[in-house]
């Protein structure tokens, strides 16, 4: 055997009393070196470290503030036409310039932000409620109920969602409400699937059996035990629903099927400004396009960051 040769203190150097037994030092063995954090604290700590996601969050907070207060910063109305003033380049009077009807692009941009954020958040919230009820019931009840409910979802999933949305818009007539209704008609499916998967996974855990044995009602078990444990993926799904909805609104408005003039939505503004590619009034297209893209970017990176932060597998 190859004996390890080290230059530790030679035998004489070690004090004699170091060889007295000190007994089992158990507290030290049980010592937890790293501080224990709750799931949410830990997730928040990791989200804070993600610079891109935090950048997205900060942008969205600023955007929300501007959506509320931005129009107050200028004396211009978002809809009033001022023809002599048309197609003005950005200036100290009109920060983002004016459009072909002389309307202030700056003011219209923040009105557009209101619509985009409202559509996004409303769609995400409605999806959340429908999805959680449908998916929660399917996952919790299981068996026959589940397979019937999931067969329905499977068929609905095959529907091309923008096509359905367009059809509904044709029937109900274009308006903000219609857009939101149309978006949520198919939008809840993704959420329902995720909730069901989570519930299926968790319902076999022992603490659920424990509350069942106390005679807790189904609705109470879902609310008190299952939901807090399924929140991670659901929050991520909600965050990623928002940019989809914002895109859909802009897309539909761009096609002339969504928000109607003279109301300002980023999609409407971009559609109105299509001709500027030739005319060179770039600011009319640039600002709505920039803000749609930035907003979707912010939600996407925030969603990605949340996904990483909330994934229990990645906890260290």
């Amino acid at each position: 055997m190859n004996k390890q040769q080290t230059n530790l203190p030679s035998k004489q150097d070690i004090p004699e009393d170091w060889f007295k037994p000190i007994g089992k030092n158990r507290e030290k063995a049980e010592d937890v070196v790293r501080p224990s954090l709750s799931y949410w604290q830990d997730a928040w700590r990791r989200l804070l470290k993600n610079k891109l996601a935090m950048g997205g969050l900060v942008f969205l907070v600023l955007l929300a503030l501007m959506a509320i207060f931005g129009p107050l910063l200028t004396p211009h109305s978002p809809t009033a036409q001022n023809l002599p003033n048309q197609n003005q380049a950005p200036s100290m009077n009109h920060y983002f310039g004016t459009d072909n009807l002389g309307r202030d692009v700056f003011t219209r941009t923040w009105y557009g932000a209101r619509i985009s954020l409202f559509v996004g958040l409303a769609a995400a919230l409605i999806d959340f409620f429908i999805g959680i009820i449908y998916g929660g019931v399917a996952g919790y009840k299981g068996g026959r109920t589940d397979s019937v409910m999931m067969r329905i979802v499977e068929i609905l999933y095959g529907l091309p969602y923008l096509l359905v949305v367009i059809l509904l818009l044709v029937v109900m007539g274009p308006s903000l409400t219609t857009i939101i209704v149309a978006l949520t008609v198919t939008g809840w499916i993704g959420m329902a699937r995720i909730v069901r998967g989570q519930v299926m996974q968790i319902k076999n855990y022992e603490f659920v059996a424990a509350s069942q044995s106390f005679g807790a009602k189904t609705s109470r078990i879902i609310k008190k035990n299952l939901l807090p444990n399924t929140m991670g993926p659901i929050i991520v799904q909600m965050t990623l629903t928002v940019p989809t909805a914002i895109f859909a609104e802009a897309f539909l408005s761009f096609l002339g099927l969504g928000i109607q003039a003279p109301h300002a939505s980023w999609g409407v503004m971009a559609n109105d400004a299509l001709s500027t590619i030739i005319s060179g009034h770039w600011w009319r297209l640039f600002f709505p396009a920039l803000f749609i893209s930035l907003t979707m970017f912010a939600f996407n990176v925030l969603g990605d960051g949340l996904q990483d932060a909330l994934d229990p597998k990645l906890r260290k």
Partner: protein
Amino acid sequence: MKIANDEKIKQNPKAKTYEQPVLQVDNLEVTFKTYGGTVQAVRGVSFNIMKGETLAIVGESGCGKSVTSSAIMGLIPSPPGKITNGQVMFNGRDLTGLAKNELRKIRGADISMIFQDPMTALNPTLKIGDQLIEGIMQHTSISTADAKKKAIEMMKLVGIPNPTERMKQYPHQFSGGMRQRIVIAIALMCEPELLIADEPTTALDVTIQAQILELFEEIQQKTGVAIILITHDLGVVAKIANRIAVMYAGKIVETGTKREIFYEPKHPYTQGLLNSVPRLDLKGKPLEPIEGTPPDLFAPPVGCPFTARCPHAMTVCEKIMPQQTALSQSHGVNCWLLDERAQR
């Protein structure tokens, strides 16, 4: 002690001579850089293994035994892992210093590895036959037909019925035990000199475990392959190991023959391990678990890592790392209790 690489030792059924070391690991150190800091997973491990011998490396999960085996194979994921010190001498060549493609020529040809979970070790989308022959096709200039013949031969050796038909099937069409046999057959395809088996029976049923262990013994007798068996299961060790190295917190704390470890364990950790498993020869003695948990390898203690859990701990244990004391040619213990000044 230089043996040229081409001087490959031919199969010999009676080759039970343990004189030639196949592999010598000397003062191996492996670290992993993580967000929390640097983990010192293996901290100066030395051992050797002779031809035709089975060496068992035993320890709790996280003690560094699997990292040691990956380091020998050159499979430490880098980054974050790195071999920071030491040598792995295989037939006179230091594997830690080899270029990637040189190492690749040895991997799978001269040293093979068997993984813990046969359910995940096989590619679910490739036919068994392809997975069997691709290694030998890579390492030698054998024809596909011959490689297939060889694969069928190997499947027979590991006890798989209807090998010709089975070649065309996918992993999901095999049971767990059968899959582990396939994994073993794959490892044997190139007739390696060294087989590293990382917890080869942990994921299997007890009855299947016994069959697989018997298969190992049988293969060793037939081919003279040296086997490094990585396990936490002392039952497995008792069955097929010749020599045992006990690892704790990235270090080997005691090494010896099976008899020495099982009947004359000197390190308190080895003693604790043995007391915590049921044994037929010590009926009536209650089982005693080792209390506490192993130290955090982010900041390993300066002294003996077992101090905090050791029933006989002394002040010196906390302060200075014990050196190895040789009790016989084969039995070595790293423990201050063997110092003459210790009050036992």
